[in-house]
């Protein structure tokens, strides 16, 4: 297994960025509801109406996918941080996992 480097704070920052993006994307799904296909040439109006019905769902799915990514990153951050703390405690003999 190759070596790896973990700075849990970096993962948390990445999760924060994804969180923000997820919020923006999900919010935009609502903005699509403000687009009106009325008064347009008939074929374009019908096509746009159909698209306007499908697009909010697509953006909500995208928002959910980003949410899931953020949750996974936060979980990883927690695991790595706990491992880091556990190893540190063990090394110092102060934690529940330390030497007797």
């Amino acid at each position, binding site marked *: 297994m190759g070596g790896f480097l973990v700075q849990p704070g970096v993962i948390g*920052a990445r999760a924060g*960025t994804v969180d923000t993006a997820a919020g923006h994307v999900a919010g935009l799904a609502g*903005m699509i509801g403000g687009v009106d296909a009325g008064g347009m040439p*008939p074929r374009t109006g019908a*096509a746009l109406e159909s*698209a306007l019905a*499908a*697009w909010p769902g697509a953006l909500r799915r*995208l928002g959910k996918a980003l949410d899931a990514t953020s949750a996974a990153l936060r979980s990883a951050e927690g695991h790595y941080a706990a491992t880091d703390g556990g190893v540190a405690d063990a090394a110092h003999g102060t934690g529940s996992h330390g030497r007797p």
Partner: protein
Amino acid sequence: MGAPDVEGLPWPEGEPGALTAAAGKLRAIAGKLSAAGGPLATAAGLGGWSGEASIASSLLLSAQTQSVQGAAEVFGSTATALSGLATLLSAGQDRIRVLAREVRAAREAAEAAQHRAADAAQRMSAYPDSTGLEGAYLHLNAAAGQAQQHYRDVRDRAMRQAHEIVAECKAADADTASEVAEGKIAATAGPNGLPAGASQVDIEPVALAWLYAPHIRFHPDEQYLPSDIRAALARTTLRTIDGRTVLDLPDDFRPRGSTSAPVDFSVVQRDGKTYLMYRVWYSYNDKGLDDHEGDLELFGVELGPDGKPAAALYYGHGTPHRVPWDQVPKQDGHPVSYSASGSHASYPAPGHYPIGKVVGIDTATDEAAGGGPHEEVESHLRPGPAHYTQPDGSPIPAGARIGDDKSAVGGSPLAPNTGGNTEPFPAGTTPIEGAPNAGDGLDGKIVGAGKDIAHLAESGAKIAATPITIGLDALP
């Protein structure tokens, strides 16, 4: 808003302002999406974390960033298309207004000339001996004729030009509608249902699954609509009942379903061909002697070497029927499948399909008809695994059925790709070429539409008591 008064000239439909307004809003959404995608791209490449998990996370974030950017492109390009149509429409309508003014001026001039000639005629009749009045009348009458001819010329030329403008606007309307439709697909047809860049559509079979997902027409009498197969499997318990291995479902778990339940799909290669396979799950098969818990119905699209659909596979009961794509009924490019009442078997057209024979006589039929709910599967599509698992994640044993019913003629279904339920169809078998014969079975002849002899038997009536009512056309 209706067409303005343009002297009877044809008028291109639509309001440029409506197009411009929608384009502006879509452009704003595109801008916000782009703004959201920027930091994501940066986050995928942050330092301070390396190793396999970091790489996997970066790949995932890169894909999601592409989806965000792809969606931004879709909204941006749709806005551009709408703006282009608005410009063309506005110019066309302005030009027709100008033509209408020219026609109106010519018409009013002709009417005035005609009026002057009529006045001269009146004065001439009042003073019949006046040669001056006669000369004036002749002059004015000739001028009126010329003005009328000029009006006709102006009107005919304007009419021709207006027709050309309207035709041009209609063509642009059709082109724009196509671009918007492509945008709809591109914004929903990416892997996992996420938006994808337009370049991803039409290439990957996974994306094609959204393009060619079936539109299902349910019978008005249908009691059980699709539900989530994974939700059902999550509630199962592996048991052995009467020597049969079953994934037992709770008896009180029988959702009526809806037309918005998730439908899993898979992409399968067989004998050099690619198949898009759709799995539609129902909690119950409500079909008289074949009542059973759980019902899995497949629908398939066979792709040709060019990546375009070559045929659809309709799974009535057992071996599917392969219907060439040009004979498949479609809605907006999606294949249409009629789901038979109770059994949920899929057919390409409404009809009474014989499904069981006793001494050569059709004793049960599937009745497929429109008029009930519709489902557009692409709206609820979800990539499915090749093999599902039990709730604890362990594999489903070969031959295990989802549900504990063993009916007289069938029973609860096998999970996809277990036992004989191999996708797209069991190895060593081939589909039946052509649509099934929607021959008239016993439906409607004995107990009316929506019923068949199997239902009749279940309700306690005696099949033997009705032989005389069997139509001759039901005989083999």
